[in-house]
């Protein structure tokens, strides 16, 4: 597995990713999980960019990040809509 030069940067992102994953599980409240999921998306986007320095990687990283943000947004909106129990 060819690791590029920024080894410490990749390790930082990986450690933060695992930390965020653990915080997600340990958090009981659903809504409070979402900021930790957001941190995870940041970390994995960082890992993606650091693994493969190619111009198209920007598109893949951005697609992943926007996708995961959209997903968190959808989860949060649906949760908000469900609890209020309108319609």
């Amino acid at each position, binding site marked *: 597995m060819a690791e590029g030069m920024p080894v410490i940067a990749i390790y930082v992102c990986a450690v933060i990713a695992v930390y965020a994953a653990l915080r997600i599980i340990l958090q009981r409240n659903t809504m*409070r999980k979402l*900021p930790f999921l957001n*941190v995870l998306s940041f970390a994995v986007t960082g890992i993606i960019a650091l693994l493969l320095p190619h111009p198209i990687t920007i598109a893949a990283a951005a697609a992943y990040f926007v996708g995961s943000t959209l997903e968190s947004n959808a989860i949060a909106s649906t949760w908000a809509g469900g609890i209020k129990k309108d319609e």
Partner: protein
Amino acid sequence: MLDEPTRILIAAVICWLNFMIIDLFFKLPESGGVSGATAIAEEVEKGGGALNGGFMMGNIVSSPDASAGTLLASCGVFCAGFFGGLFAAVLVYAGNRICYDPGYAGTTGCITATFIVYGATQIGFAASDFIAGMVIAILTIQGISHVHASRLIARFWSVRCRWLRGCR
């Protein structure tokens, strides 16, 4: 130049300042952009945090804001130089519109970050330092203690309201 861990920490501080200043400027802590952001803000407040801080954290989760812009700008400069950063800004703009966000915080943050990261690479930093730095910066806001982070944001928000008029 400097050692890599030191560079990453300095980059983290710069990223933190960049995205905080731009998000505060674009009034992110004022209200929730979408219903999901408001829900997160209410939950943070129930846990003991400040409502305005919660709004900003909710907005960060729901839509690409300056923090996302800074991260993607660093990735862009790392992968393809200065124009990579600008390409990332275009993608952030598209992402904002896809998430129904009418604001420009993300795009602005991305453009300023492109300039900052590119300038820093000329004086000895590596773009990868900014990627790791931005992840650390967002960890401090969203990933350690929601209560304390939201109170910190609310304090900055009140300072911003006093300096630049234009919020409630």
